[in-house]
């Protein structure tokens, strides 16, 4: 009888525990937001960015492109073209994101350009076999209280808004953990021997915003008009009589 009562009680307690910590891991689900845009990332180690010669040269080439964007000229650039921004840049977008946590998968939906990432848990990353993507290909595992995401197979992107470059072999490791009940820390380690002489890490923090909802990001409307002009051929031809 004691066993039966114990089973009944444990059922209730286990249910409550699952609600608080899904799958026995910290619950990272919810809407997170840092309203500060990160223009240029810097290593958390405090040192200068460890460029290789190739990395420094590429960064110097990228800077004029970024300046062109800043002056609102029609540069073919990720943001102006509504292309996904890549990692770690998307963490610094200044817009919220929502995490969905499942045993087999974690989904991160960023408001920025409706970017979403599917992180497949307890699988092995095969970056050479994966199709390249702007957000790469990601697998995850739990390391104590941290969700560790390993990613590779990236299409060309910038690491930040200042134009930090990366090469074909970029690997990114992200460690997501709650540092208190309402703050999420994301440590993003860049490992790219072509552009950087050693791995280096960027730190972001986000506050939990349960009252917020992810909005429909409107990339494209104003941008298309600015690129092609409101009287341009593209918009004239789109609609009858326009």
């Amino acid at each position, binding site marked *: *009888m004691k066993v*039966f*009562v114990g089973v*009944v009680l444990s*059922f209730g307690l286990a249910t409550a525990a699952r609600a608080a910590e899904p799958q026995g891991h910290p619950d990272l689900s919810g809407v997170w937001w840092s309203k500060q845009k990160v223009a240029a990332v810097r290593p958390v180690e405090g040192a200068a960015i460890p460029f290789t010669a190739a990395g420094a040269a590429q960064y110097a080439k990228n800077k004029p492109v970024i300046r062109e964007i800043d002056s609102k000229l029609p540069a073919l650039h990720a943001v102006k*073209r*509504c*292309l*996904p921004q890549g990692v770690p840049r998307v963490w610094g977008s200044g817009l919220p994101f*929502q995490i*969905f946590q*499942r045993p087999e998968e974690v*989904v991160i*939906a960023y408001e920025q350009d*409706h*970017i*979403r990432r*599917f992180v*497949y848990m307890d699988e092995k990353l095969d970056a050479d076999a994966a*199709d390249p*993507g*702007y*957000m790469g290909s990601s697998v995850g595992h739990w390391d104590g209280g941290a969700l560790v995401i390993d990613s590779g197979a990236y299409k060309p992107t910038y690491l930040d808004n200042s134009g930090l470059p990366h090469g074909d072999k970029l690997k990114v490791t992200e460690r997501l953990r709650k540092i208190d009940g309402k703050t999420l820390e994301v440590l993003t380690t860049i490992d790219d021997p072509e552009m950087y002489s050693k791995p280096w890490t960027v730190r972001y923090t986000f506050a939990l915003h349960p009252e917020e*909802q*992810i*909005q*429909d990001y*409107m*990339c*494209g*409307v104003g941008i*298309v008009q600015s690129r*092609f002009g409101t009287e341009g*051929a*593209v918009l004239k*031809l*789109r*609609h*009858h*009589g326009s």
Partner: protein
Amino acid sequence: MMNLKMIAAAAMGAGAMLAATAACAAPDFSGVWMVQRFYATGNDKIRTLDGLPLPMTPAAKAEYDYLQKREADGLTVIHNTMLGWPKGFIQASRGNFDFKVVQEPKLLAFFFDEDHQYTFVHIDAKHPANVKPSFLGDSVAHWEGDTLVVDTIGYNGETPLNNIQMSAKAHTVMRLRLINDGKSLENIISFDDPGAFTRPWQMKIIYDRRPPKERIPESVYAENDHDLASLDEQ
């Protein structure tokens, strides 16, 4: 010390809790889905449930004819695809691409392969007083038995149904339910759009469940914008 009556009462209480949970449990739409071929994208696949012709307004019909003629003449039709603009739930779910549903008690998230779009449907929520118009509109939902009823307003007038353009006055209601032992998902869509249609009408789409390990790749239509450069010559 606990007697038999107390234990029986505890057991009955636990049983009642389980039964109540089961009774309240919403159907699980989680998984990956793809439109059935019969309902897949194409102007000819937009059919009214009552079998009557599509009740387009004269303005919508003129737009439709214009786009159809461009296609017939071999000219480019500037779909949302080329501009990197979302197509909205209905059109994105009609393409020959997968979409994934992630379901939570108060939220269903629909992640489309088509142009990496997604939309969130909040259960038992209300539309904001001032909806900001967008391609996907603002969606709220509730359960009616085993049917998820998704009410969407706030379209921006640039959301297509193939070559038919929904207006900013569009109001759609989708009724989604599992059929075929959960292997398929039925979507009965009601359109009330006085800008594009002369009367409300309904269409049906059925999606089939994909294998559990099916993955949604990254598709980015904004990459197609290079094609736009040639349009100045037309």
